């Protein structure tokens, strides 16, 4: 079924937080660079999908979101704590 808008917004927030925590994603705050931020986020989603052996689409599909909701270690997957 299509994802209802509210749930979709929550999933995007969850994904942003996940990618910031574990894939060194930095969200673009300025609206001018919004499109750049979306490209960056898609690139980080691809990096995460590749790490977990998921289909690399750059899109927040169900499998990718399910993987982001799994209990896990707090260490980043792609770089250490500074």
């Amino acid at each position, binding site marked *: 079924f299509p994802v209802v808008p509210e749930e979709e917004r929550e999933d995007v927030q969850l994904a942003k937080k996940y990618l910031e925590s574990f894939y060194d994603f930095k969200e673009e705050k300025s609206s001018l660079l919004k499109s750049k931020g979306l490209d960056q986020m898609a690139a980080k989603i691809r990096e995460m999908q590749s790490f977990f052996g998921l289909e690399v689409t750059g899109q927040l599909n169900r499998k990718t979101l399910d993987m982001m909701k799994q209990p*896990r270690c707090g260490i980043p997957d792609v770089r250490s704590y500074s």
Partner: protein
Amino acid sequence: TFPHSPRWRKEDVTYRILNFTPDMLQADVEEAIAKAFQLWSSVTPLRFTRVYSGHADIMISFASGFHGDFYSFDGPGGTLAHAYPPGNDIGGDAHFDEDENWTKFTTYSGYNLFLVAAHELGHSLGLGHSNVFGALMYPIYMAKDTRDYRLPQDDIDGIQALYGPPRESPALPTKASPPQQPTEVTPAEEPTEVSPPEAPTEPTPSKAPERPEDCDPRLTFDAITTLRGEILFFKGSFVWRKSPYFSAIEHDTISSFWPALAGGFDAGYEVDKKDRVLFFKDGQYWAVSGYNIEPGFPQPIQNLGFPSSIRRIDAAVHDQNTKRTYFFVGNKYWSFNENTQAMERGYPRKIAADFQGIGHSVDAALQRNGHFYFFHGPNQYEVDIKSKKLISKMRSNSWFNC
């Protein structure tokens, strides 16, 4: 690994448990963490010693939400724990989210502390995440049966790339004498021991070590103890069990009795009046009663009165008549009074000075029917307990009806 591959530049690493989760018995937390360390020490030269005060290399704590570093925890689920790569101060420390439900079981109602601690301690030793599904260092928690848990190959390759393989290779028949002991000059009549080949420097492919044949004439043992009338012979992770009730020798693994001690022992002895067996590995010892490890263990062997220069012992044997326990280290031995729980004055003494005919180190020791049996390489020496005179010399595996 982490960028620049930080690692501990020493083999003796200390840890301290700063606090405990109310979800589990303190003894179960201690056992889970000791078992997690054992997993890594069994495939590297690293030795882990628990300290109870001051600073340790790896400080372990439970906390929730913001807890003083830049990575706050997030309530139940999500992030379970995190740990820092080797380094000063916070380096090496491991933090567990108290908002999770911690358990020693592998049910789905909580997170198994041993599994999560083993993963986090991998980070404390310098490992990053693995994307090999099923590897211990895979970032996502997966409940597994922990009774006979073995480190997956990917994790062994990773940790051995940082620290190399363990000092002695379990498959070799002789027990490497402790490096800090003076080399023993074996008396002329002793067969010259074939010194084990140099351990390979590149990571050892982790083939599961095979149990030596019962009647292999070169068979040697790491430790031997009695236990409730039976005799247990230890080598690596293997146990030979000789029972007065059955003629056949039973073959087991240590993990089938004490999963937390699966890595093997240097020594063991029974104080039968207390139904208690003490096992020694490197600088620590555990007390067990049957299958149960007593709470508060492991403890440093210095708690028994050994000087800090002693990092491990070779063998131990208890004489229930005199209530004395003899500890053997290199060519010397100590006498411990089980009544006063203290080392006796005037020790250590030379083994050769008191035990006629035992002119070398002792790998393992056993007392039975009024005799001591001292094991050295593939031979054992039967000694009368009272006179301390040598009675006979036999093959180490003469107990196996060969």
